[in-house]
């Protein structure tokens, strides 16, 4: 192995090629070596970040109390951590190295390939490392993962950039079922949620929670613990693709939902999956609905985009609205699927 290599003395075209071989975390580490290395990187590694998305997240199941910035490699569909902002009370080293994150000089430790910075204020730390990496990679914040104590992200992101978010995740810490969001916080998140392309609600309010706000308009929505979703909530969703999991919806609700669709409701919806223990396929089609439903045998696959929902209908029922738009519906293992066909 060679000992040393004067990287700043090679031609810029070669430098760019070398940087293209680095992981985002390594680029961050290099940028922290000096002001000069930061400036050279800022102006010479756009080739890398064209297919990247920047994500900020407050904490998660595997790393509680570890707010951090993650890069999503779109073409490889991979997440890579780049920089974290921990509480100063977690700092174990007696002689930490110090790094400059924007205007802050903070202690840092290198652990398993990830640079951890330490802050008196967790929120300030996460904001600072997000601004730093966003500026380094010339990327806006694309994705945010929020927890019940991090709704500040919505306002902060909307103030720092005009580019809308691509994905918003609402998460429940530590995947504990008892870690409910307070109902007021849940409603507050619903009101404050920034405009986004995709919304994933993996957090859960209390059993008695009732949503009075409208869900934000998105292109893809996934609600994982949807026991709180009512028929009215469902029919007010404005999204192209919808996934409602672990709901308490009934067969009667599905019947009403289908009648609403036949009457022109949810015009943007192209695919929906709803799971519930309460479904009984045989009871869905009352007399009124039977006039619109035809049993079919054909196979047909729904997939709008490569990273989106995918479902193959095998048989099921075809429905047609008065305006001629057709859809296929199917029940499988306690789940209801419906896809609208645009042909």
């Amino acid at each position, binding site marked *: *192995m*060679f*000992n*040393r*290599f*004067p*990287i*700043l*003395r*090679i*031609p810029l*075209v*070669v430098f760019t*090629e*070398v*940087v*293209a*071989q*680095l992981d985002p975390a*390594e680029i961050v*580490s*290099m940028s*922290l*070596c*000096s*002001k*000069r*290395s930061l400036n050279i990187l800022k102006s010479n590694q756009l080739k890398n970040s064209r297919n990247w998305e920047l994500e900020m997240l407050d904490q998660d199941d595997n790393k509680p109390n570890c707010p951090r910035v993650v890069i999503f490699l779109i073409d490889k569909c991979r997440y890579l951590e780049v920089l974290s902002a921990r509480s100063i009370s977690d700092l174990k080293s007696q002689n930490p*190295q110090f*790094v400059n994150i924007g205007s802050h000089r903070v202690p*840092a430790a*290198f652990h398993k*390939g990830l*640079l951890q910075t330490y802050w008196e204020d967790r929120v300030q730390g996460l904001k600072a490392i997000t601004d730093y990496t966003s500026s380094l990679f010339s990327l806006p914040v694309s994705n945010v993962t929020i927890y019940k104590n991090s709704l500040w992200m919505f306002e902060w992101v909307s103030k720092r950039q005009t580019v809308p978010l691509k994905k918003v995740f609402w998460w429940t810490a530590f995947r504990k079922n008892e870690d409910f969001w307070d109902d007021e916080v849940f409603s507050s998140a619903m009101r404050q949620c920034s405009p986004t392309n995709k919304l994933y609600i993996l957090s859960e309010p209390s059993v008695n929670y009732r949503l009075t706000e409208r869900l934000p308009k998105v292109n893809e929505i996934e609600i994982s613990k949807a026991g709180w979703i009512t028929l009215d909530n469902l029919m007010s969703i404005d999204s192209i693709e919808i996934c409602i999991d672990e709901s308490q919806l009934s067969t009667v609700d599905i019947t009403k939902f289908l009648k609403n669709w036949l009457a022109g409701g949810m015009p943007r919806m192209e695919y929906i999956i709803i799971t519930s223990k309460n479904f009984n396929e045989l009871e869905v089609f009352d007399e009124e609905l039977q006039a619109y439903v035809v049993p079919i045998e054909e196979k047909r696959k729904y997939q709008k985009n490569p990273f989106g929902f995918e479902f193959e209908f095998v048989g099921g029922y075809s429905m047609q609205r008065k305006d001629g738009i057709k859809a296929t519906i199917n029940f499988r293992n306690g789940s209801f699927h419906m896809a609208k066909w645009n042909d």
Partner: protein
Amino acid sequence: MSSTEQGTSSAAPAEPTTAPESAAAPEVPESFYYVHGKDKVVHKVSAGALQHSALIHGMISNLGYTEEQAKANPFPFENIDGDILQMVVDWCNQHKGKPTPPEDTNLPKQKEKLFDLVLAVNYLEIKELLTYCCKQVAMMVKGKSPEEIREIWMIPTDAEDEAAEKEAKKRAGKEAAGETAAAAGDAK
């Protein structure tokens, strides 16, 4: 001027056993060119091997040398050390007429010369070898901390950069003052 014979010992293709002799295409003799580096040692390299270098390939296309003319006029690369040019020529010979695999194990072994090799390969425009060299350079800092990266890649600290800048300004000032004094002397 000494000379090394590089890339000339390609084995003759085996005689086809099934095709009639009359169907065999006449063999086109391979043309050779000559290059030398700072040490003036001349390397004989086939046109096929030199195709890896966009720079030399362009020079060959423009010159239209006969073999005799090529021998009498080796391409001079005075900015490339002889041993580095030897490495490059070896690599070009090993990869003559075939694409480089993504993980090339035939990279020249003298890795302490990587910096000079990178500059030479970049100058000679050998894209595939440059990509592989860049991978090697990147590998040096895989999983390293900022402190380690600074050390391995010889990145000066802010304080060192500032000191160097001050020194450069001081030198420039002295040079300017010297020029002014010289001009004043000339005027007298």
